[in-house]
């Protein structure tokens, strides 16, 4: 059993064994839990199914949230795409639509997979399900992509944080974006080394992002931030696949994220006291939602 405490170590082990990062994570999980590999694979397939349902339901169902702050944007986006009103960017449109759909299902008390958190649950499905559809990938490949994403998430959680209350939105949507970028690179045949470069690039791009939800609810700006996490993951994955590297090594990016989170003021860490939550509209909405005069 190997101990994985850095992205570099993870990539090194995979490269040395001539395996994918997902293979290493899957084996670790099965060994650690003393379970057979098929059972662990089935468990991840179940997660994928829930992601697929959420992406579908986010467009098919009414997603108005309890607070009234959100809902219906994924459907609106789909209609605009069908009517040719967007820039017409194919895969990008699908990714944006799915990120909205899954995040809106979450806000409306539907069923999702926390990935790594509920607030950032749209990013990984948006990227993985869109690649699955566009590249006609078999389910197994996508399931393995989720193991890669999980492996990256475990390193980030161990070395920094995946919680908005601890590290701001960079720790939630930033981590999810890095995880999605990693999955995308592996699913598209990139090497383990490219996988971690994609993580480094994706995470770098969202450093400093604060957690400032209006009325403290996982809706504004969380839902739309899921779209930027997903789109950023595509950009990072593409750059890594092109051989572009993160000048700052991926593990150091994670430490930078941690140190930024540590010095980030508390009002910007899920307390609804700063940023967008503290704007005049944010405050007005909060009062309306909670019936405060």
């Amino acid at each position, binding site marked *: 059993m190997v101990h994985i405490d850095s992205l570099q170590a993870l990539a090194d082990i995979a490269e040395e064994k001539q395996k994918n990062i997902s293979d290493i994570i899957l084996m670790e999980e099965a060994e650690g839990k003393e379970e057979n590999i098929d059972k662990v694979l089935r468990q991840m397939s179940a997660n994928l199914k829930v992601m697929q349902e959420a992406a579908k339901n986010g467009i098919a169902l009414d997603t108005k949230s309890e607070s009234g702050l959100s809902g219906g944007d994924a459907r609106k986006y789909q209609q605009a795409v069908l009517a040719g009103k967007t820039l017409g960017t194919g895969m990008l449109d699908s990714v944006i639509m799915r990120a909205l759909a899954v995040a809106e299902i979450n806000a409306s008390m539907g069923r999702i997979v926390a990935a790594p958190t509920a607030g950032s649950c749209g990013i990984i499905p948006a990227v993985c399900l869109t690649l699955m559809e566009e590249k006609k990938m078999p389910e197994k490949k996508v399931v393995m992509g989720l193991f890669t994403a999980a492996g990256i998430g475990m390193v980030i959680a161990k070395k920094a944080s995946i919680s908005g209350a601890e590290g701001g939105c960079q720790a939630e949507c930033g981590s999810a974006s890095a995880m999605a970028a990693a999955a995308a690179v592996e699913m598209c045949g990139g090497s383990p080394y490219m996988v971690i470069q994609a993580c480094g690039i994706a995470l770098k791009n969202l450093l400093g992002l604060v957690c400032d939800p209006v009325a403290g609810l996982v809706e504004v700006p969380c839902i739309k931030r899921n779209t930027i996490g997903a789109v950023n993951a595509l950009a990072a994955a593409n750059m890594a696949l092109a051989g572009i590297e993160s000048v700052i090594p991926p593990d150091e990016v994670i430490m930078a994220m941690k140190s930024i989170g540590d010095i980030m003021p508390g009002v910007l860490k899920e307390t609804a006291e700063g940023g967008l939550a503290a704007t005049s509209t944010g405050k007005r909405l909060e009062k309306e939602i*909670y019936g405060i005069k």
Partner: protein
Amino acid sequence: MNVFDIIGPIMVGPSSSHTAGAARIGKMARRLLGDDLQEAQIQFHGSFAHTYKGHGTDRAIVGGLLGFEPDDLRIKTSLEIAAGLGLRIVFEKVQLREAHPNTVVIKMRDKSGKALSVTGSSIGGGNIVIKQIDDLKVEIYGEYHTLAVVHQDTPGMVAKVTGLLAKNNINIARMNLFRSRRGGEALMVIELDQNVPSRATKSIANLECVISVRQLEPTKRLGGE
């Protein structure tokens, strides 16, 4: 931490702490009371008090009290389901002293009139801790099979109970003792790697000075299970 803590759990949104964790606290309260809930007074503190409506914390707690898992879509309509079953549920906002910001006090009464109060906190990522049962301060995380043994505070109780577990080849993961006062009623919370067979719980219940034994199933499920 394992893979399914990161990609998972499967849950009803929108918040792992305010919805999934809340459902687990509700479920733990149900396990401590038994299945015959009649009424519950649910008191929210801190962030729970501020945002419970928008996060569906109220629906999640009641869903847990009804026995729903955190991924059960019925959580969304749990208040209506509870009303349909004739349960009396009221919500209040309170200010507790020195409590975690996501804390709830659930004061319950069952059909026989027995009352039980359970205080729990949702401490992040869907993880919870039960902090108080009636007047007794405790720490129960609900991650393992847990045995709650209420007994008279007398010498040798730990040896007797753990001896019976050892005889049944049951491994203890974690254990805590809590008591109201010396010689008074005490609670032994034993977290175990496996389920305790009913003959073993019976033999513990039959020990002198044991008042009650309750087995609590873990409320944490892994993604996909």
